[in-house]
């Protein structure tokens, strides 16, 4: 077979998964091509123009700590930074930023173009070339053939994409862009287990037609918390978003027209995400709620377009317009782009290895929505891992994986490959058993050494990592060990400020754990009296370390006790068919997931307790034998 071009790695798709994948593979030394339908839409945010949020912000931090690019790009293009859950425990705080959608695209494209070994190609891939169970390359619609040892599919919602607005449907990857139909067929031909999911977007409004006075402004944080550990300043001027509400009139109108919604007419078969329901779903499933919250999110500095977050819908465009008018402040608002629902193919991720490689075709990797996830962040981290592993694969090096205990990325991939998905998978902090240890501000400590080993963390960032680590440990020493007595100036100013008797002596660690202590105030007194000028971020990190250390120790004991069988290994030659009395369904679930340990087996979805007990008894008997 003759090829027009040859690379080590080809990445299909230049969304959030594709960009990370291509950037990582190229920086690890693999000659990499990224193929996209439209070079002008690299890094497009097809849904809301925001990155981060609870658990998602954690993921972006982890991507950054490993040497990924999403954090840096959003830091340069974010127009409203907010740290969510600031009043809650540090483990559930998470950064979020509204992006300038167009700036984000430009910045991402520039980032890719500045990467050595990385080659941008525009075109539509219609087929995968496979020989003897190994990927050889891809075929394009324009008849070009590109050869590669590894191929990463990051096709988002484009596989067999079908857009719904009212009763009207049309094939599309996103509104206004063609779907990948041939490639979807090719994957089915290759024997992949294909399922169908659905997601949706709300209408975009013309900001000039909104009566902003009617909405409650939601300002950006005064002190923006960036996503990247290397970011010092947020360059973009910060804007307000606005909060408003639907009302009974809107709900009644939707209910009266519910038959017009393809979600309720039976037209849409794919399963949508429960945490991102359409306004139709909200109104039908929660009839007692008299209002639903809406966020008006400006799409950027250089556009009047506004994203109506919370109003995702696939109702006919003219009805969308009518219903929007019933919201005070939007009575004159014009819809620029109607909302729509999109159904798309995904491939059962239980067929993937922990390295995101398909088990049936060597050198073929899947990342992002094709694996049944939703969200830019979830896509980006898979892209990063797939890019890393594709490069390692062509370099014939051992694959790279992260454990559940050390990262949200590890949780995500483990969940995907062992449990599969029933609906678009989104990350939540409650999915991580180890949530208290997976703080956003410790992502570097947890993951940057891996990134360095892989070749993704450059010298200056590695230097930065070390100096941060050094400063934190120094800070913690002073924080915990330095005693302040009644005669010390720090003692006097603090007991005055807190209006409390602090005993004969105290450490800052002890004071910080008192309820309702103003950490920022404490930091200032600390810096003044110890001569160690701790930044707010540094101070918060050390405080969180101290706050959680007791819990983590106690918790470890409990976990050890409860899950002391979790590390019990399952031999790869283990035959589930030989487990007497296991139904064929249970055998199939075990075999599809091929867990490496009892802990993984325990988390496989759909297993009966009896099946798990049976496995445990057998593993224990085998071990004893």
């Amino acid at each position, binding site marked *: 077979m003759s090829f027009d071009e040859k690379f080590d790695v080809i990445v299909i798709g230049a969304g959030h998964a594709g960009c990370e994948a291509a950037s990582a593979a190229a920086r690890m030394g693999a000659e990499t091509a990224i193929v996209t339908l439209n070079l002008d839409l690299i890094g497009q945010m097809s849904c809301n123009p925001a990155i981060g949020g609870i658990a998602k912000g954690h993921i972006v931090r982890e991507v950054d700590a490993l040497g990924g690019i999403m954090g840096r790009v959003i830091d340069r293009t974010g127009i409203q930074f907010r740290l969510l*859950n600031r009043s809650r*425990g540090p483990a559930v705080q998470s950064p979020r930023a509204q992006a300038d959608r167009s700036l984000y695209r430009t910045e991402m494209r520039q980032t890719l173009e500045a990467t050595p070994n990385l080659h941008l190609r525009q075109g539509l891939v219609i087929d995968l070339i496979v020989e003897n169970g190994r990927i050889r390359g891809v075929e394009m619609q324009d008849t070009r053939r590109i050869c590669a040892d590894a191929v990463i599919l990051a096709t988002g919602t484009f596989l067999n994409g079908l857009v719904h607005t009212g009763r009207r449907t049309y094939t599309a990857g996103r509104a206004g862009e063609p779907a990948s139909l041939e490639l979807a067929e090719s994957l089915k031909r290759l024997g992949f287990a294909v399922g169908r999911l659905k997601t949706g977007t709300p209408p975009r409004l013309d900001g000039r037609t909104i009566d902003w006075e009617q909405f409650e402004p939601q300002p950006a944080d005064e002190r923006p918390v960036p996503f990247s550990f290397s970011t010092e300043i947020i360059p973009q001027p910060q804007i307000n978003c606005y909060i408003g509400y639907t009302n009974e009139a809107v709900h009644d109108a939707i209910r009266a027209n519910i038959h017009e919604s393809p979600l309720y007419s039976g037209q849409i078969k794919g399963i949508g995400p*429960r*945490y*991102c329901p359409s306004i139709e779903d909200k109104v039908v499933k929660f009839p007692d709620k008299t209002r639903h919250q809406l966020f008006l999110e400006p799409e950027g500095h250089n556009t009047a377009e506004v994203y109506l977050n919370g109003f995702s819908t696939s109702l006919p465009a003219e009805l969308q317009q009518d219903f929007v008018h019933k919201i005070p402040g939007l009575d004159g608002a014009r819809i620029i782009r109607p909302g729509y629902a999109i159904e798309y193919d995904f491939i059962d991720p239980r067929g993937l290895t922990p390295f995101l490689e398909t088990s049936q075709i060597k050198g073929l990797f899947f990342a992002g929505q094709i694996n049944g996830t939703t969200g830019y962040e979830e896509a980006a981290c898979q892209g990063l891992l797939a890019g890393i592993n594709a490069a390692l694969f062509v370099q014939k090096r051992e694959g790279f994986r992260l454990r559940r205990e050390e990262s949200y990325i590890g949780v995500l991939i483990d969940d995907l490959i062992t449990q599969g998905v029933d609906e678009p998978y989104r990350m939540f902090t409650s999915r991580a058993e180890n949530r208290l240890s997976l703080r956003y501000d410790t992502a570097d400590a947890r993951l940057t050494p891996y990134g360095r080993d892989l070749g993704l963390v450059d010298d200056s960032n590695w230097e930065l990592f070390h100096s941060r680590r050094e400063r934190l440990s120094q800070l913690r020493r002073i924080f915990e060990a330095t005693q302040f007595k009644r005669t010390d100036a720090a003692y006097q100013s603090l007991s005055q400020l807190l209006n409390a008797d602090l005993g004969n002596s105290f450490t800052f660690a002890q004071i910080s754990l008192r309820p309702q202590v103003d950490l920022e105030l404490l930091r200032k007194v600390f810096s003044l009296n110890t001569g160690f000028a701790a930044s707010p971020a540094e101070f918060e990190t050390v405080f969180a370390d101290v706050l959680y250390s007791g819990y983590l120790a106690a*918790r470890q004991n409990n976990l050890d006790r409860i899950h002391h069988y979790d590390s019990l290994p399952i031999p790869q030659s283990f035959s589930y068919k030989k487990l007497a009395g296991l139904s064929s369904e249970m055998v199939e679930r075990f075999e599809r997931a091929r867990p490496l340990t009892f802990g993984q087996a325990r988390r496989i979805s759909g297993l009966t307790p*009896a099946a798990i007990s049976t496995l445990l008894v057998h593993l224990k008997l085998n071990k004893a034998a």
Partner: protein
Amino acid sequence: MRTPDTIVALSTPPGRSGIGVIRLSGPASLDYTRALVRTPDFTPEPNRATLKTLRDPDSGDALDQSLVTYFKSPRSFTGEDVIELSCHGSPVLLLEVVDALLKLGARAAAPGEFTLRALSNGRLSLSQAEAVRDLIDAQTNAAARQAARQLGGELSARLQPFKDSLVEIIVRLESSLEFVEDDLPEVALESLRLQLEGLIHNLEILARSFHSGRLLKDGLKVTLVGRPNAGKSSIFNELLTSDRAIVTDIPGTTRDSLSELLNLEGVPVLLTDTAGVREAFDPIEHLGIARTRQAMADADLIVAVIDGSQPLTREDESLLADLPAGCYLIALNKSDLGQFDPATLNGSARGIKPIPISAKTGAGFDELRRAILAPFGGGGLQTTDFLITNARHSDLLRRAADSLRASQKSIGEGVSEDLILVGLYDSLRFLGEITGETTPEDVLTRIFATFCIGK
């Protein structure tokens, strides 16, 4: 699914006994039985015992007359076809029958394999499997009833409401953390604290019932001590005559004349007489002292027998001084012969109210029985209530309650929800060890069913 083979085992304890039950489980159970009774079309009605002659499949010689019961899949203990053969209890004969079945193609079951099959086929949960073991070991009717209840899944059912309330609390807290941008109701921490209080209280009651539960299962070890001629043996015999246990075959206990099993109001009591060490308090008899000490150390309760018709002897006093505080009672025997003045008791025994009895007339024995059971939940255990009989379960319940207490404390200290949740999740996991796990997915499902989430 691989077709399982058919397993066979003697299901009653080895040794000479009235009857011996041989159990077969697996698809060929009926075929093997047909060969054994030499009736190719033998089709017993399920769950009905039929009297049949078992014959050697090779020679045709009669082996035994047996009651054959057929339990048809899936309505059997293991979920497979099961045959139970109730034979006469000769060990030799039982071996021959098992041998014949092995020759026919059955496989000797590994220890616990019947229960394992029941687990695999979803006939039993883990806590039910544990109950099976308890039922087999049950020594009295009350204990058997208790095990049977647990087997019926009652423990899981009892714990379900606890788990439900716990998940409901977790759902409220998690939603407030995960969906901070959604318009969710505030979590009222004070009401949550009270809700936890109720949960803790109920879990602790259940955990505490283990004390009584353990007695039902394992029995109460009572040791009679006293100087020679105080009347220990008469008391021993009197208790034995009226309360002899229904089951006498106790594994692990010496069946010498010194220990016997009684059934005291449903509680199995292992009564040990130290009569064999008559010279126990003679300092020269070291061996005797050691054996008495052993019997005393093993006992849950010691009954010190004193001849109430005479003043305390030096031996009596030294005995009383030796008794471990808090787990003994004093029986004043020979009450028919005269009255002893309790005021003469001193040292550690001062203030303990002796029970006057007469082994000769039987007077005072009702009170003695009540006194024996009193420190363990009172005479007549409340067997109508559900009791925890398994140390593991009791331990898990206690830990579940402790974890909730930690969360409750966190709420009081005003710490963030993520830390409050630590104890709640731990508690849920401990309960899950008994009833099956609650996954993060279960919690998320509840969140989405309860709240309208999503921007």
